[in-house]
């Protein structure tokens, strides 16, 4: 099918121009599983394209060769009483070939499923991901409780190592989908699902919620950052640390603003008295590249505007507007910027 080929070529050209954006694309696989699925995709696309071409060719040839008629042309009813062996053979062959091709595709799918399921999981990083309206809670699990830590919306993983995601939901059904790494898996309240993946290529991969989850379903993105292993270890070590104590007066004042305004009602900052779990963990907020679940870049201007009125950017988000004086806001920003 030339149309399809042309269209994908065009898009390939368009996509290379935008290479700076993290990949969120099943056709640009970088995970072991996404690659396996992509192999199956290519086989299926090939078979289906050939079948489509064959059916269309048979159809077009049939209507090209058949003689033309008018409403008053005498109908050919003789065929009601006699078999038509000439038509029978191609129909039987067509159905038989279709059945064989289907079996081929079913077997290919079965083999691919086994490939997906048989990822070696030795030394896997275990991460619990919890879907919330409309953000992702992330908790790194460890046999030793003191080594666990929480973050949100930005998941760092070591490249070349398997990752086990334990998927839960705090409210409605969400779906975790980073197409360049693996297919999606639903986060279902009352059930725990597991998703394994591995990518050998360091990079940033984007994903977003794929199961309609209400108001801001469209603005529920996340990133998976695959770091080289040593870099990942360094990152994880930093994340395990509590937040640094504020140093300057302005920063101290900022923490005070955080604790006395509505912030502390929902957010946790390890190392302070803020321990609420209704919103994303902010212990290392400044280390993340985006805020509001992939909605805004994590810059001082956007963060300040977001805190003052989240509804401007993400209508319906559970975070209320926080009216702060310019002075308080300035102090709060100074403090939040220390949460590296």
């Amino acid at each position, binding site marked *: 099918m030339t*149309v399809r080929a042309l*269209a*994908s070529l065009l*898009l390939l050209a*368009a*996509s290379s121009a*935008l290479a700076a*954006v993290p990949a*969120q*694309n*099943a056709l640009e696989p970088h995970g072991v599983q996404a690659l396996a699925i992509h192999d*199956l995709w290519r086989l*299926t*696309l090939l078979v*289906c394209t050939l079948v*489509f071409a064959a059916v*269309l060719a048979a*159809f077009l040839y049939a209507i090209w060769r*058949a003689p*033309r*008629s008018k*409403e008053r042309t005498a*109908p050919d*009813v003789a*065929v*009601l009483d006699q078999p*038509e062996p*000439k*038509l029978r053979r*191609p*129909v039987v062959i*067509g*159905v038989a070939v*279709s059945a064989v091709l*289907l079996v081929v595709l*079913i077997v290919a*799918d079965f083999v691919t*499923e086994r490939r*997906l399921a048989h990822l070696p999981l030795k030394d896997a990083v275990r991460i619990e991901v919890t879907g919330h*309206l409309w953000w992702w809670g992330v908790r790194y699990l460890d046999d030793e409780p003191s080594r666990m830590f929480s973050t949100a919306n930005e998941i760092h993983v070591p490249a070349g190592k398997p990752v086990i995601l334990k998927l839960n939901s705090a*409210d*409605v*059904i969400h*779906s975790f*989908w980073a197409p360049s790494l*693996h*297919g999606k*898996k*639903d986060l*279902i309240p*009352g059930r725990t*699902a597991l998703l394994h993946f591995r990518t050998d290529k360091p990079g940033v991969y*984007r994903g977003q*919620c*794929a*199961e309609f*989850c*209400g108001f801001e*379903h*469209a603005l529920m993105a996340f990133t998976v950052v695959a770091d080289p292993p040593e870099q990942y270890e360094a990152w994880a070590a930093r994340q395990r640390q509590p937040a640094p104590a504020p140093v300057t007066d302005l920063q101290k004042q900022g923490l005070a603003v955080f604790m006395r305004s509505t912030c502390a009602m929902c957010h946790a900052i390890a190392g302070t008295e803020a321990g609420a779990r209704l919103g994303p963990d902010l212990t290392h907020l400044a280390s993340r590249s985006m805020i509001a679940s992939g909605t805004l870049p994590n810059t001082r201007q956007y963060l300040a505007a977001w805190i003052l009125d989240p509804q401007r950017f993400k209508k319906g988000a559970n975070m209320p507007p926080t009216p702060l004086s310019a002075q308080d806001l300035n102090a709060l920003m100074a403090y939040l910027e220390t949460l590296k």
Partner: protein
Amino acid sequence: MSADANNPVLDRSWSDPPGLIGWLSAINHKTISIRFMLTTMGFFAAGGVLAMIIRLQLARPENKLVGPDFYNQLFTMHGTTMMFLFAVPVMQAVATYLVPLMIGSRGIAFPRMNAFAYWIFLFGGLMLYIAFILDIGPDAGWFAYPPLAGPEYSPGKRMDFWAQLITYTELSGLLEAVILITTIFKMRTPGMTLNRMPLFVWTMLVTSFMVMFAMPSVMLASTALITDRLVGTHFYNPAEGGDVLLWQHLFWFFGHPEVYLIFIPPLGFMSSIIATFARRPIYGYPVMVLAVIATAFLAFSLWVHHMFATNVPELGKSFFTAASAMIAIPTAAQIFCWIATLWAGRLNFRTPMLFALSFFFILTIGGLTGIMLASVSLDLQVHDTFFVVAHLHYVLIGGAVFPLFGAFYYWFPKFTGRLMSERLGKWNFWLMFVGFNVAFFPMHIAGLRGMPRRVYTYPAEMGWNLLNLVSSIGAAILAVGILLFVINVLVSRRRGEVAGADPWGAGTLEWATASPPAPGNFAQPVVVASRFPLWSPGGVAGVVRGLADDRREVLVTSVLDAVPNHRAMMPESSIWPFVSAVAVTVLFVGSIFTPWAVVWGAVLATPPLIVWFWPKRKATQMNLEREVKP
């Protein structure tokens, strides 16, 4: 066509009374069917307008035309309208017109129930749209997954209106299924054995049986949702031992067969149109019938392919992959039989034929992407993305809407007595065909490139901008095509070429009646000896004598061989189906607000039903007389 003699006595006895009361009392199957078709097409237009707003919003990234609240209502209303208020009922509406004519009957079984089913459907649809206009339109998607659709995450009345709409359409759909099965099994004209039934009648028979098995599942699901929301049951609340996946199983056990409720009747349209315009019977009649039956069985065994991303067991998924792929085989068999028919036919490319032939292009793509979705691994990538949106529109528009438009062009002269304009028809077809493909083909690529469905906005740098803009332009072309159809209907109804009984030289019985048919359809019901009675050399085999003309008398025949059993009296026109529908609507709408409405609503709905069935002295007298003196 001696059957088409004028018979004023018969016309009078089958006519509905005049005036407003008469209009509300109408039960003639053709009158009800025309209203039903117009209503469903009205909802199709409304759903189309919603789709255009969706495409306007998505034409640009980060568009601010509509916000998430309205957008979520838009796509929920669009899906609900197209599935429940258009695609399934429009097939039943067309069938209630054509089936009695195709099987040579003067009427339809349970005509008052037919009128009741129509009114219930109308009131249900109006309820939903009134709610939408009042900003209480449902907003949790047309498959309304709990807990999002449940009491905690959808407070207010929006989802209650949705769940109650399901009750309405199920009631209407189940009644129509009962009516059609009874009509097809017991009212075929003598000689029309099962083996001689037109393929369209076969498809409606199979569809009606599927309705009876599929609808109870969604009825159970939506009733449990209503009670969760209204009286605090916990069917879908995991915190109290309920299960959110229960909904998905019950809903898709209905929802997947529903696709075939929409897709199977058009297979019958295809067979009718292709036979007529290829001037020969469809090749492989038994294969066509068995394929439809096989499709119906398989359709109930693949619902889990909507749930591959949930944590159902892996081996179980493989079974559903196989079942989902296997359903392509009967469809392939039918496609090959049609191609064989075209191969050996002599073709006439009138507008109905163009619409039918587009099936081979559009549905084949939709079927092949369906095979991709049947694969667990591929589905994990494209599930809930625009790829699925593209796939389902290729299947439903290519497999159902294009053949349906062909069917309208084909049977319009039967409905109105006039042909539709061929020139406008060709424009209509090509605009729809091009617009459709331009709108929906890019969505495959958008989905593969990571665009989830049901998003009201997307960031500009995702690489989806051009694809979405092209889709929106295609949608506009498609809309212009559909607008031309409306214009063509309006113009042709008054000024179209007068058709005569059989303008296409077709061979099935509906073309033996006048266009439009007289109130009693057949002055003298014909006896048939062939699948295409009007094509038989020497015309129809004979006529039935002995049916009374001065009352609504029909012939009841045996299920398999259509051997005459006895004569039955059909009821007179009555306003009570309408009044009952109003009373039931009070019950249904009331119970959105208070569970007590079920109690007092039932009290209110009972008297009209009693009056509806109250025996009339005159009718009883007449029946007794008839037993003595036929």
